[in-house]
């Protein structure tokens, strides 16, 4: 029974891994193809099925004048906007979530749960509803087509995710930890920074990862709120498309764009797999 179960488990994991890895291998293989290799039927293995070429990758580094898209600048823009917006969202979101978790707010019929729902409700709205207000506001502030404008918009979009995750996290942290810190001589601000925050890293990492995924993959606002001065990676990748779809360049761009998220996921994996609060309350 044990061997059968183990075999079944490993078979399931192997099949699932193939589902996950196959698209990456496909994209990797395609990124080294050219027009003929892509259109000549199913080919998979370089040097055996087709002659590999770096053309798909070179396009990403060439300037538009040379027939490329040069994704380096959009790439760096995306990293800057996503990281800064995620950082601000986590910072503000954690503080807001802590307040919503620990203090009671009441204004008429509006209470803590309503405020938390108000935050997340902004993610429930279709993005297109926000597009025109954002466009007008950034226009009036002179921040259209700027990195700062995009950071501001992404903070608005990402902070609800941070608040939502962190409220749930703080609700599970026993309030007695905060109280013990107060009794041990911390004022409320010291209690937050010296005790609550160091123990909230797993929650913040999860929230940060979600913020980065949402920020990094957004195309809609990156497309609407930028014109010629600033371009983010998703928009740059789309601009690769022409009358003939360059699958090789698109595959290379897809791999390049997904790489940072994979790196981040590997770095924070240890925080995702174990909480740090297991010893707070046994």
């Amino acid at each position, binding site marked *: 029974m044990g061997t059968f179960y183990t075999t079944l488990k490993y078979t399931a994991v192997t099949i699932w891994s193939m589902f996950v890895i196959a698209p990456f291998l496909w994209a990797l293989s395609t990124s080294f193809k050219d027009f003929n290799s892509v259109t000549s039927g199913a080919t998979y293995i370089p040097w055996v099925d087709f002659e590999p070429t770096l053309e798909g990758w070179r396009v990403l580094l060439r300037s538009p004048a040379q027939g490329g898209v040069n994704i380096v600048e959009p790439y760096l823009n995306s990293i800057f906007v996503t990281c800064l917006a995620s950082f601000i969202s986590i910072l503000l979101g954690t503080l807001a979530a802590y307040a919503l978790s620990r203090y009671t707010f009441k204004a008429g019929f509006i209470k803590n749960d309503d405020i938390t729902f108000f935050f997340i409700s902004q993610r429930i709205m279709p993005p297109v509803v926000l597009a025109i207000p954002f466009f007008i506001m950034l226009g009036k502030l002179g921040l259209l087509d700027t990195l700062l404008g995009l950071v501001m918009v992404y903070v608005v979009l990402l902070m609800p995710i941070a608040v939502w995750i962190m409220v749930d996290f703080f609700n599970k942290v*026993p309030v*007695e*930890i905060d*109280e*013990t*810190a*107060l*009794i*041990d*001589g*911390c*004022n409320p601000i*010291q209690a937050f920074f010296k*005790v609550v925050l*160091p*123990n909230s890293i797993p929650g913040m990492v999860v929230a940060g990862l979600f913020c980065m995924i949402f920020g990094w993959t957004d195309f809609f606002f990156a497309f609407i709120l930028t014109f010629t001065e600033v371009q983010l990676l998703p928009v740059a990748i789309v601009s690769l498309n022409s009358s003939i779809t360059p699958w090789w360049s698109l595959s290379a761009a897809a791999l390049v764009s997904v790489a940072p998220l994979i790196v981040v996921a590997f770095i924070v994996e240890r925080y995702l797999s174990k909480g*740090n*609060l*297991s*010893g*707070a*309350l*046994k």
Partner: protein
Amino acid sequence: MTLIASNLTTKGKEEFFLNDISFEMSPGKIYTIIGRTLSGKTTLLKTIAGLIAQDSGTLSFNGNNFDVIPVWKRQVAMVYQQFINYPHLNVYDNIAFPLKQRKVDLAEIKDRVKQAIEQVGLEGFEERKIQALSGGQQQRVALARSLVKNANILLLDEPLVNLDYKLREQLREEFKKIFSSKASEEAILIYSTTDPIEAMQLGGEVIVMDEGKILQQGSAKEIYENPRSTKVAEITNDPAMNLFDGEINGKKITLNNEVILNIPKHFKDLPDGKYSFGIRASGVTLDKSGFPFQIELAEISGSETFLHLNNDQIHVVGLLDAVKNFNIGETVKVSFDIEKLYAFGSDGILMSSPYSGTK
């Protein structure tokens, strides 16, 4: 260095968490607050710590108004029933935390932490992460952190309740030793519990609470011998004192129209009439010449057996000073030791006890 509470009241939406609580506590003593769950024990401790602000009433310590001092400036330490520690710090840093927070000299911190670690028996565990400790060890860390401060008031909120039986017994003994040395250092120790045995074993002054009110305050012996009311008798006994409606008629006592007993000497001054009678499990024993009862449940506890007995009118818990198995539904004969009977008035107030005669 006296802690004085005057008319402390904290009200929830409908119920009182604290209802007109007044007391005076002196250093060098252990005060054990006993009450059922939701009786207001934790609220009272948190109010003393400054974590909850009372709606009305005042707290003063050492002649000064305690209410205006924020939690972090009060010389108070607290141990919770959950094992609350700082998971991101190791054992040493957990215990040193309150001292570092108060910017105590590093060499002194080292000495005091070492001393506290020795007191709670955690030598060799200094570098361990909290997560790597057992429940009992975690609670020792919490206790060490509260001791290291040399606080004027040490609050212990059911610190043993989440431990297994053996460890609870062991730590209770150790607590007593630690407290006796701590008490000599002029600290007020306030220990809350739901366990009557724990309250009696710790000795000191016992405060009985229910529904936010103090029902009785006195020495453990006094409360055991003369519980002021049926409620106190229920709360301070495990199993709860058996209570029956009954009446005194001439030289006889009738319990629930079922059991007729001779009147004991200490009831001699009570006039005929209706009363609530109480008797502890130890006063109800098996006796071939007694009244017939059916066994509902037989609980073996250590070297004794608690018998839950029932007949048509009366449910009673008796004690057999031996370990014995019984069949459920088995009929046994039970006698009531009239010299251990208590009489309470119709309002539940003690009228006569075996220890002090008629009140």
